[in-house]
């Protein structure tokens, strides 16, 4: 069954979250959204239903955060909690329902980015971890890593310096360039630390988008394949036990009834046959023996 990082929100049921939660993490300019744009149609082509989500996209708090960031008076604690509000709204109203419906959820950043942003702003790591202890553990975290040298031209030459991406709230006296470098370096250090703690799968984002995508696709396929096999096995196991159970019940009932009434049993037997097709029984035995 799916797990959280320690605490459970009220009325959050973890059973039957059959979908897959796949996280794409990385700093600004690492190409996260490009990858999600490539992965989504690919997964859909394979027949998976996909939902994608990301920071500040909640119906509840997304607009409020955008407005708050327009001014330069968003405090650090306030920012951390505003993001947490946005995250939990999406967790409860997007991520969990999608997983329950069997979707693949692709999320552009997850609690790790939110932790890193807060920690580089001086928040106590224990405090921010406590808040996000209600988050679901994902099935995979792909960390698109880009060194500061490669990151700089990608971000700055395409869209210029941004106040928040440059951490100007932290280094107001610096010029944007110095501030950007200090801030992004601090973020990278924090990401590398989180990477070890939360088992990120590191992906070298300096490679071209297609190479990165091929790498991600390969890993996602493995994840899905591993899972579908497990699902198949458990379904098989459940099917054969329930049919076996039904057969036993029917036999018992038959014994209680007149032994002449064999028609019921005769009808019941073929029902069990489809699930024992091929080497179904063999699988069952292997699984059971483990």
């Amino acid at each position, binding site marked *: 069954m799916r797990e959280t990082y320690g*605490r*459970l*929100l*009220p*009325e959050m049921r973890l059973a039957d979250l059959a979908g897959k939660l796949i996280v794409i993490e990385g700093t600004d300019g690492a190409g996260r959204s490009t990858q999600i744009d490539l992965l989504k149609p690919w997964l859909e082509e394979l027949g998976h239903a996909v939902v994608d989500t990301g920071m500040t996209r909640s*119906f*509840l*708090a997304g*607009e*409020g955060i955008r*407005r*708050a960031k327009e*001014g330069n*008076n*968003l*405090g*650090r*604690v*306030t920012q*951390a*909690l*505003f993001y*947490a*509000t946005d995250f*939990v*709204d999406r967790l*409860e*109203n997007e991520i969990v329902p999608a997983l329950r419906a069997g979707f693949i959820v692709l999320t552009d950043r997850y609690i790790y980015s939110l932790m890193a942003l807060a920690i*580089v*702003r*001086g*928040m*106590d790591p*224990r*405090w921010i971890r*406590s*808040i996000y*202890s*209600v988050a679901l553990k994902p099935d995979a975290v792909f960390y698109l890593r880009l060194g500061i040298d490669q990151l700089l031209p990608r971000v700055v030459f395409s869209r210029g310096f941004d106040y928040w991406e440059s951490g100007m709230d*932290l*280094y107001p006296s610096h010029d944007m360039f110095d501030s950007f470098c200090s801030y992004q370096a601090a973020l990278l250090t924090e990401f590398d630390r989180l990477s070890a703690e939360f088992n990120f799968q590191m992906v070298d984002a300096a490679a071209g988008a297609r190479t990165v995508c091929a790498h991600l696709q390969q890993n996602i396929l493995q994840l899905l394949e591993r899972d579908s096999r497990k699902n198949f096995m458990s379904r098989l196991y459940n099917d054969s036990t329930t049919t076996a159970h039904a057969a036993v019940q029917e036999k018992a009932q038959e014994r209680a009834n007149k032994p002449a009434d064999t028609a019921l049993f005769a009808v019941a037997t073929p029902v069990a046959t489809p699930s024992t097709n091929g080497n179904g029984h063999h699988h069952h035995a292997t699984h059971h023996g483990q």
Partner: protein
Amino acid sequence: MEIGSGVRIGPFEVFAPLQPAVSTVRHYGEHLFPGRLIVVEGIDGSGKSTQLSLVHKWLESKGYGVVFSEWNSSPLVKDTTKHGKKKKLLTPATFSLIHSTDFADRTERSILPLLKAGAVVLCDRYIYTAFARDVARGMDRDWVRELYGFAVKPAIAFYFRVPLETAIHRLLDGRDGFKFYEAGMDLNLADDSVESFRMFQGRILSEYEKMIPEFGLTVVDATLPIEVQQAQVRQIVKAHLDKAKELRVQA
């Protein structure tokens, strides 16, 4: 944690994050700022706001710099809260988080800097409101307490204790029913807003009772005449302000 003047402001450093590392503490921040933080708590209809406004006028007349901060009033956050309430988007978790965001903004923007500047800061509702309401909504007790770990510890936290029925009579005198979240209608306790309010506020009252020893709340019998309560409150406030003056001289 120690910053500059030896100020404890919570489990993490709020205002100087990239300064030299500081030790961290678990409990709510004791502060040694020259200002004084005084908060009032209690269920709706307990008369706490009336009492606080009388304290406000009294302190102003004494020449103190007094600033008032109300629950759920951050200019940066309150529109989002309003949007969430109007559209009924809030779950117990997001209700809790958006209120903590509002509180964080008021802490960073006004409460802390004003305490530093030596003001008497009066808060109508404080973290105890969140603890009572969020736990009554089913949030984890420890999670909510940790969420507000950045809060400044008040010099005095008055708890205006009133029986539920008295509060309901006072409130219904002026209006027909209760608002959706105020009555805890999101919890589906009852179809009728008055009945829901009664059940929800009952839970809140029992949370407040538990917090009296936990946080050393100062209990005021809110069934007493307004003047009697105010006299008691002023006496206690006065004792704390004497200390504040001493501190100011030292600084």
